[in-house]
């Protein structure tokens, strides 16, 4: 389990290039306050590469800042589809990051 003090950042509904700017602003706020980063992707209904890119950006930023980062909860179908087609689950390291609850 991750730190109890960390609340997850919920990714909800449509997470595409149309909505990603809003998600980004909210994430910046969350990131600044959170000791560790937990994404809850379960409520995503529609996803595209922009959300994957955003999470990857957060992953790199967290590595720089020494924060822990993980994905909590099963991947919703739409996100999983993007990851598979984009080859994001092909390396063991990436697969571990994305697909482990």
């Amino acid at each position, binding site marked *: 389990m991750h730190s109890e003090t960390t609340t997850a950042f919920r990714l909800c509904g449509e997470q*595409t*290039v*149309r909505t990603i700017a809003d998600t980004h602003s909210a994430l910046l706020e969350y990131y600044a306050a959170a000791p560790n980063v937990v994404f809850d992707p379960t409520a995503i209904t529609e996803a*595209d590469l922009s959300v994957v890119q955003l999470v990857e950006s957060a992953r790199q930023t967290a590595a720089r800042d020494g924060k822990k980062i993980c994905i909590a909860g099963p991947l919703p179908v739409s996100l999983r589809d993007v990851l598979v087609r984009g080859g994001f689950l092909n390396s063991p390291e990436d697969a571990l990051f994305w697909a482990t609850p």
Partner: protein
Amino acid sequence: MSAILIVDDSASIRQAVKIALGGLGHNVSEAANGAEGATKADVARFDLIITDLNMPVMDGLTMIRKLRTNAAYTGVPILFLTTESDPGIKSQAKAAGATGWITKPFDADQLSRIVIKVLAK
């Protein structure tokens, strides 16, 4: 089935596109110039817009730029019709926000292939 808007001042081009894409099962709407296209696009949500570049009232480039400022058309493919494969025009249109192009004259086959390509998510 997707909603497609064809913007062209030539009724015959619109008709050709309509026939070709209607045959694929798409719902094709028409507009005769950029201004009409932009208005229609505001009212209805299209999955793909195909537009001529040189048109009266409002040209295609202006319409594409206008549409790209609309959040609803972020990420929606916009193809432009071009008579020549002029790289200058292509890069101008792509800078305005076009996804790709269709070279005139086109046949139904070619058009269908491109449309299937850009409609793929």
